[in-house]
């Protein structure tokens, strides 16, 4: 009896999560897939294996797709450059400030995403100190502006997803066995060598997880482009939003959503393939 129960336990534990996933992911995905192959106008959409929606999605909006991945990629790299030293400091150097610094990383989440993005409208506004300084040092031309440009959108994306990069890297650094670094130094490794050959590889799972958690939502984001960008900076999320809410062309919007999902999946699979599964899974996968 107990043996049977023990064997079934994992399934019971998986149950709630599975039901949740089926109800709120698989079922909507099915309807989305069906919708993406319909044709007609609102009120008269008919299922007709209308693959042209996919062809149009790629040919009409290739610019926005490329733009989305470029922006998301740039934001991911910037976030990594900002997050790694920060996570490193929190994990190894912060001492008693560690919890406070972790809190500071998470604190922005107490305000909604939208408000935080709108705050950047003020930060980057034309008369703001930030822009004045940039103009003074010549990064931005004297009559130029930062808001409503690509750098503003990328800055917003970087800011908004930074904690998703910091926390996994911190987690992987924090559980790193410092005796390994000491051993490396005992064996005459310089600090730099110890970092490159011990610390960095051991924190790879955190980096991979962080980049994925940043890149994936950033690719589909539309809030930053909406508020910090101009017409020339709209991302694929904005196009999908416009197709759904303004043009009421649901099939095209659904097809675009699928293409976006597929492209992200491909990019992620290629990335994981190159970075190695063990980097994602950590030691256990080896």
């Amino acid at each position: 009896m107990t043996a049977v129960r023990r064997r079934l336990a994992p399934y019971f534990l998986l149950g709630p999560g599975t039901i949740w996933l089926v109800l709120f992911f698989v079922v909507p995905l099915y309807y989305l897939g069906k919708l993406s192959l319909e044709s007609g106008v609102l009120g008269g959409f008919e299922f007709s294996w209308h693959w042209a929606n996919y062809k149009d999605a790629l040919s009409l909006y290739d610019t926005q797709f490329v733009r989305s991945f470029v922006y998301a990629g740039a934001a991911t790299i910037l976030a990594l450059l900002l997050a790694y030293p920060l996570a490193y400091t929190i994990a190894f150097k912060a001492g008693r400030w560690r919890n406070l610094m972790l809190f500071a990383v998470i604190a922005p989440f107490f305000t909604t995403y939208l408000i935080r993005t709108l705050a950047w409208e003020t930060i980057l506004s034309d008369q703001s100190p930030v822009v004045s300084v940039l103009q003074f040092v010549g990064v931005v031309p004297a009559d130029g502006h930062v808001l409503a440009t690509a750098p503003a959108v990328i800055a917003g994306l970087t800011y908004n997803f930074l904690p998703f990069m910091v926390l996994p890297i911190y987690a992987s650094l924090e559980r790193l066995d410092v005796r390994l670094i000491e051993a490396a130094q005992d064996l005459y490794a310089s600090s730099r060598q110890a970092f490159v050959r011990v610390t960095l590889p051991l924190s790879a799972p955190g980096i991979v997880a962080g980049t994925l958690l940043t890149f994936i939502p950033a690719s589909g984001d539309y809030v930053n482009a909406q508020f910090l960008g101009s017409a020339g900076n709209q991302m694929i999320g904005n196009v999908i939003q416009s197709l759904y809410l303004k043009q009421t062309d649901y099939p095209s919007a659904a097809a675009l959503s699928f293409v976006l999902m597929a492209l992200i999946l491909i990019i992620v699979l290629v990335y994981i393939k190159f970075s190695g599964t063990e980097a994602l899974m950590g030691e256990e996968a080896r």
Partner: protein
Amino acid sequence: MRTEIHGRAVRMLAAAVAALALALGLAACGGGGGGGIEGGGDTNEVETVKLQGKPSGSLTISNWPLYIDKQTVPDFEKKSGIKVDYKEDINANEEFFGKMQPLLQEGESGGRSIFVVADWMSSKMYELGYLQNIDKSGIPNVEKNLVASLREPSFDPERSYTVPWQSGMTGIIVRTDLAPDVHSVCDLLDPKYKGKVEMLSELRQTVPLVMKCEGVADPSKASEAEWMKAMDKIGQASASGQIRRFTGNDYAADLINGNAIAVVGWSGDAVQLQADNPNIEWRMPTEGCIFWSEDMVIPIGAPNPTAAEAWMNFVYEPEVAANIAEYVNYVTPVEGVKEVLAKRNPELAENQLIFPSSSFTKKCSPEPAPSGELEQNLVRAFNAILNG
């Protein structure tokens, strides 16, 4: 272990794809029979509201945010005994249409008895058979007090299914300290103001104004070629960076902190903005403005239409309409409001943006309402500009 995990992931992925394909196949069998847009009722036989005795019960109204004062709803409830659920759940015409359409298709209104939507949206909903005609015996105040200029609009010449809620003008709003010389829509395209100009993301207002700049006197009668020509101009101005971005109400923040110095904007907003910053001013473009209205309509399947008409009648009492006008600062469609406000708030009563004289608006044109294939083409072309 790496290859095994890999292999498993690939197998799971393949299974997922297979399941999806199967599901889609099933959908194909079950699909069809969706029917075209035919609407809940036959377009030729639009139902007329059936009034039933003295208004009572409850009433649900859908309107835009900040489009009414705080007093009118409680006043109405007290006077009529009708309980009002006043929803501020309309943020955009298309979005609201998309939300309600599946219900309206089934002859339901989602419990709502009144929508407030733009002229062109009213006309579209009516054509689809989603609206009822109004029984005019229930709204004597509207018959009596509706301003003459709004009595015979081309889309509903007898006002058989629409009652105007507020009207307004789309023109230009400028920072008089930073761009004193902007007087026309054409001026917005002057390279001098590059990157400091914004336009509304409203196809039916922004493009007609640019058409007026190009010499089209009445954009509501424009050809597709004239629309497209104006859109090309807007597209180029956007690509070159002349137009900083396309906005909704959020141009307000850009004007206040000087990110934008001249925008295409709404008259009522400007009245409120100017109260906070005297350097912000709405200007009648030398080409004229776009004059629009938003209407109260009664959808099919609306519960308690008797109460809905009682509400329409109530807000057409000049005293009530004056309360609303004083708060929202748009153009009131109710005769006699100016006289009421002249006693209470003389400055407001003299404001051309709230009580525009016919000479002030003589070059203005009604908001165009393109339909059918033309509308589809225009919507697509305009959104292509908005999405760069």
